[in-house]
Structure formats: structure tokens, C-alpha cells
């Protein structure tokens, strides 16, 4: 029985937390913070406490820590507690009368005297006049709320594409142009992104699409992204992925809508020859300009040579103008995937593409995702159905 390759590939997992990494930390109240860890610096999590960044180095992701003093202690993860279904109901508890028996000053005093959060909660509960009348479910809810308030713990979150996308989507979904985890994964699949593949990406969505393709390539393949600014595009989402600079620069290159135009004549090369004797500064500058110019020429050539495996678009500009501009550089049978927060934009694009013979079967879909609460006895869908993940158009280049 063959067991496959037995040497562990370098990139099967994000590995261990390293100096300089940007990590996501989940706080007891559910908030997630993004923090750059630098050697000997102090990470301050406000009410939860502070600790030395180096204390996380070489740890695996996913651990939960308790901060006591400035020290970190790994604590076991919590499993879901079965809740006993008692005969108690809220029948005899008056609404609005479920008051907190310890004053906030009393709690402060307890906290300062080093009493652990679990103990404070226990005391709260004991002193709570109505507590025994409440249902087990209400108790559990109450306990959770209190814990979120007093616990001094945090959990590191592995910067998987899924987690990073979720973090940014919660933070500001408009900056991702509504690209949710499921939207992103469908785009990567519809474009059949694979290690070694070559893709053109138009990303006005903070870099989530570029991040998605780069993550799937893991250093093997090629991405040319087209942006709307003169200098290199800022893709803030890439930060959380902690990609190695060298790997990044060999896989990802960027053009803008001017330099990606075949009619465009690069001006950089024009002023390379001056009769004057140059200073050292001038020479360095000139050679930098030349390198940038050479690189631009070669990326342009690479784009115009075409035969790319897919085009992925999430842009604020007219999608037909983008698709028509870039589809000549796609290989036959390559996928075109366009995302928009707005159905009408894709409806128009679809009806226009249907008129053009080299696009096969443009189809528009809505992505739809629902998360469920899975606490024992209390499984139910979350009600946030209004949060849209946008719409997708998919077609095949003929």
C-alpha cells in the first residue's frame, strides 16, 4: 500500500508564528484583532491585558492563552457544554428584574485582588436571587455574557485564506466589494486555480482576490494584476497572509490600465542617455529606473504573449471594458470569472457577452451562505440573511 510522499512539504500549513508576522487574535468577546509581532515589543490588548510579543514565537496557531500578570499560560480549549434540560422556566422571573447583585465597584475590587474571572462569575451567580429559577439555557447565556466581560484570555487564529477573508469581511465588507469566504472560494474554483497556473487578476477589492490566487499557488505559478494607480497597488489584505517577500516578487507583478495597453509607449526608457558625467546618486537612480523600465517591458511582453489560464475580476470599472481588454491574452478554454456586489452590473455584462461569439455560456449566479449555531439542543440558523456575498458571472473563452 503506497502512502504517498513521506517528506512533509514546506507549505502544507502556515507553520509556526515567527518574528515579524502579523497575527489575528480572538478576544473573549469575539472581537478579532490584527497585530504585528515584533521581537521584544509589548502587545497591549486593553482590558484583556498585555504580554511580550516574543512569547508567541515558534508556537503553533490555534492555542488559547490566559494572561496572568504579563505572562502567557496555554489553557485547554473549551468544548461545548451540554445543557441539562430542567423543568425550570422563566415563568416566575419578572422581565427587567434580573439585576446584577455585585456592584461594579465590588467587581473591580475582586479583580484587583487577583480573584480569577471564573470565581467572580460564580459569586455573581450565587448572589443572584432569581438564578435558580431561570432555565438552564438562560443561565448558560448569562454565564457566557459574564465570561466575555471578565475573562483575560485570547486565541491565535491561523491566517488561512478563509480566516483572513472572514476577518476583513467582518471589518468592512465594502472594502472587499462583498467578497465573502464562499464568494472567494467559488471564484478560485470557477477559474480552476492550480499550482503552476498563470492568471490575470483585476482586484479593486483590497487585494482579497490577489491573496486568494497567491495562496492557492503557494509560490508556484504566475499572477499579473492590473490596477488603476501609477505606482504599485496597495493590497492591504496580503499583510495577514505573511507571504515571504522573495516568493511574492517572483509570482506577482502589476501593471496599470495605461501600461497594460498595447498602444502605450513607456517613457522610462526614453531619458536613459545623458551626455553628462553622473554622480554616484544619479547612477544608482538611473540603474533603478532602468531596472523598473526593463521589468515593465518584460511584464508587458508576458501579458501580451497571452495564453493565461484564467481571468478573475472584482473591479469598480465597467466589466465589459475589462473583459474585452484582457480576454485576448487568455488561452482557449480559459475561465473568466467576474464578481460584483450588484446583480444589474452582471445582468448587463451577461447580455453584452452573449452577443460576442468568443464567450461561451456566460452565466450569472448568486452566492449564498448560511451559518448555524450548533449548541446542543439549540441548533438554529443565524438570521443575518441580508449580508450579501455578491454575484458572479462565469464564462469560458473560446
Amino acid at each position, binding site marked *: 500500500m503506497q502512502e504517498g510522499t513521506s517528506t512533509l512539504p514546506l507549505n502544507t500549513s502556515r507553520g509556526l508564528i515567527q518574528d515579524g508576522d502579523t497575527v489575528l487574535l480572538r478576544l473573549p468577546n469575539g472581537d478579532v484583532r490584527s497585530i504585528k509581532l515584533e521581537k521584544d515589543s509589548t502587545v497591549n490588548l486593553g482590558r484583556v491585558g498585555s504580554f511580550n510579543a516574543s512569547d508567541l514565537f515558534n508556537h503553533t496557531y490555534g492555542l488559547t492563552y490566559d494572561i496572568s500578570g504579563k505572562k502567557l499560560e496555554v489553557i485547554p480549549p473549551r468544548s461545548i457544554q451540554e445543557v441539562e434540560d430542567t423543568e425550570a422556566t422563566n415563568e416566575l422571573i419578572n422581565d427587567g428584574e434580573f439585576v446584577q447583585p455585585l456592584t461594579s465597584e465590588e467587581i473591580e475590587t475582586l479583580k484587583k485582588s487577583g480573584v480569577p474571572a471564573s470565581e467572580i462569575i460564580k459569586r455573581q451567580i450565587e448572589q443572584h436571587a432569581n438564578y435558580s429559577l431561570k432555565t438552564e439555557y438562560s443561565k448558560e447565556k448569562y454565564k457566557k455574557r459574564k465570561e466575555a466581560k471578565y475573562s483575560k484570555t485570547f486565541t491565535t487564529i491561523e491566517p488561512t485564506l478563509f480566516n483572513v477573508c472572514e476577518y476583513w469581511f467582518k471589518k468592512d465588507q465594502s472594502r472587499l466589494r462583498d467578497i465573502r469566504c464562499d464568494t472567494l*472560494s467559488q471564484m478560485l*474554483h470557477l477559474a*480552476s486555480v492550480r499550482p503552476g497556473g498563470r492568471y490575470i487578476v483585476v482586484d479593486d477589492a483590497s487585494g482579497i482576490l490577489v491573496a486568494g490566487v497567491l495562496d492557492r499557488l503557494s509560490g508556484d505559478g504566475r499572477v499579473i494584476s492590473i490596477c488603476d494607480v501609477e505606482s504599485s497597488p496597495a493590497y492591504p489584505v496580503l499583510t495577514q497572509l505573511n507571504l515571504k517577500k522573495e516568493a511574492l516578487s517572483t509570482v506577482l507583478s502589476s501593471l496599470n490600465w495605461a501600461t497594460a495597453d498595447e498602444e502605450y509607449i513607456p517613457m522610462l526608457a526614453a531619458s536613459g542617455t545623458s551626455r553628462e558625467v553622473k554622480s554616484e546618486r544619479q547612477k544608482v537612480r538611473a540603474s533603478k529606473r532602468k531596472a523598473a523600465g526593463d521589468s515593465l517591458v518584460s511584464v508587458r511582453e508576458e501579458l501580451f504573449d497571452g495564453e493565461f489560464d484564467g481571468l478573475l475580476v472584482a473591479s469598480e470599472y465597467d466589466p465589459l471594458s475589462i473583459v474585452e481588454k484582457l480576454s485576448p491574452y487568455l488561452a482557449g*478554454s480559459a475561465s473568466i470569472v467576474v464578481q460584483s456586489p450588484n*446583480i444589474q452590473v*452582471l445582468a448587463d455584462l451577461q447580455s453584452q457577452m452573449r452577443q460576442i461569439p468568443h464567450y461561451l455560456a456566460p452565466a450569472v449566479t448568486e452566492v*449564498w451562505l*448560511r451559518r448555524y449555531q*450548533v449548541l446542543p439542543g439549540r441548533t438554529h440558523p443565524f438570521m443575518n440573511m441580508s449580508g450579501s456575498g455578491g454575484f458572479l458571472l462565469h464564462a469560458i473563452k*473560446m
Partner: protein
Amino acid sequence: MWSTARTIAAGDLVIVWLTRDLVQPLYVAPGKDFNSKYGSYRHADLVGLPYGSKVRARGGRGFIHVLRPTPELWTLALPHRTQILYLADIAFITSWLDIRSGSRVIEAGTGSGSFTHSTARTIGPTGHLWSYEFHEARFAKARDEFARHGIADRVTLTHRNVCKEGFTVEDTVDAVFLDLPAPWDAVEHAKKALRKDRVTRICCFSPCMEQVLRTVSALNEAGFTDITMYETLIRPQDVSVVPKLKPISEVSARLKEAERRREEKRQRQIREAQRRKRKRAEEEGEGEGAIQKEESEGVEV
């Protein structure tokens, strides 16, 4: 895996796109013919064509598109041996399990191989997939197919009931995907197969709520944390562009005009009838009869 060459070669798997609802796999074998209601084609004529070509039928009536296979097209075209997973689920599971280049993954069961092909593509040549199928005939078909599709080097397929016998690797994989009727029976086995030095993930796919609830309990008991449940769908959008709607002023004008014409006709017919009546009265005295009736049929509204 499948050909990445620009043009089609003998022996290649191509996807023949006849219509959106009729997509078929074809292994190019010069000498053979491909026949469909959209015409007849020689395999030999496909060789050397670029992938993504539109090909006219011999005789010229119909045409087909010949596409490069992708796991997504294969899922549309594949011979179904079981209920299969589709794009929305596969894409979401891949993303949630963090399957990427180099990942080591377990799937059970293999089924029709839809998830297998997708994962083989995503993990690339540096990753590995262990796939388990308890149904012997399905196992045999999948084995042949994986060999033919050139993924046998990155997919280890085993004929086994994993709920009873467990998996063939220990402390090895980054992710486990269970598509089984009773995934709870495989949870403890899966835990053994997952590597111990990193965060690892498991996904259990079940259509029914009761299965999900039981799996959640099993996962919780086995010590898995952050258990969540997702449902994902693709809603096809029928986005035919809406023509401009007519205002009711136009309907009103049409109705008024129709009524005016109707009333004119009525008045004309009344005048005509009266004229005929007078004429008849002059000619032959008084009388009512058939003509009256005709008029009645013409005017009653």
C-alpha cells in the same frame, strides 16, 4: 493531471460542450467517431486543434465546443455513480479546510470522484490525497479513472469501510473530509489520522439535520473545538434585461380609442338598421324579423 498543452492530442480527455445541459467527457481516440444529435465528428479531426475550439459537424449542420477538462467541468460531465457534491459545496469545503498546494488530505467516501478531482487539482504535485471507498464496484471504477486521468501519483485510493476499519495513515494529514451516511462513526479514526503538531481541520457533510446534530456531538466528545455548521448554495440568477414597462396612460388611450371605434360602429349599425327598416316599411309594410336579429348580434356588448 490533464493536458496543459495548447492543442488537443490523441489520448487526451476533452470535455465536449453541446449545450449548457449536455456536457460530455470524451477520450480522443483517432479512428473513432463522436455522434450526437448535434452531428457527427471524427476524433482524428480534433487532434491538433487548440483547446476551446468550436468544431463544425461533418456535413455542417451542428457544432460542438471542445474544452480543456477542469474538475468543475468534469463534475458537470462525469458518469454519476452516487449523489455528487457540486461546486458550491466543494469550493466552500476546500476553503474552510484550507486545502492548498502541498496539503495532505483524507476523503471518505470517494463516491463519483467529484471532490477527488477538485482536490487533486488544488493540492498539486506536492500534496497528497488519501481517498477511501467502501463500495467495491465504485472503488474499481474510480481506480481506473484516476489512473487514466494521471492523478494516481497524488491520490492513494483504498477499498475500505473506514467507519469499521479506520484510515491507513496516522498523525499525517492536514484535513479530513467525511461524506458518509454515519460520519460520527469515523470521527475517532479521523482524529488519529490528523497530524498532531499543527491546527488541523475536519469537515463532515450531511444532508439531514439529525445527522448533523449527531456529528456535532461526536466531534465535541472527541475534543474538536470551534465547531460550526454552514450551508452554502448557488442561486442561478435569471437576469433577462427588463424591457421598459408601458405606462397606464398608453393603456388608457388604447381603451378609449377602442371604445370610440366600437361606439361609432354601433351608431353606424343602428343608422343602417333604421335605414333598412324604413326602406322595408316603405316597400312592404311593417315587420320585424331576421334582419333585426342580425343587427342584435352585431351590436350587443
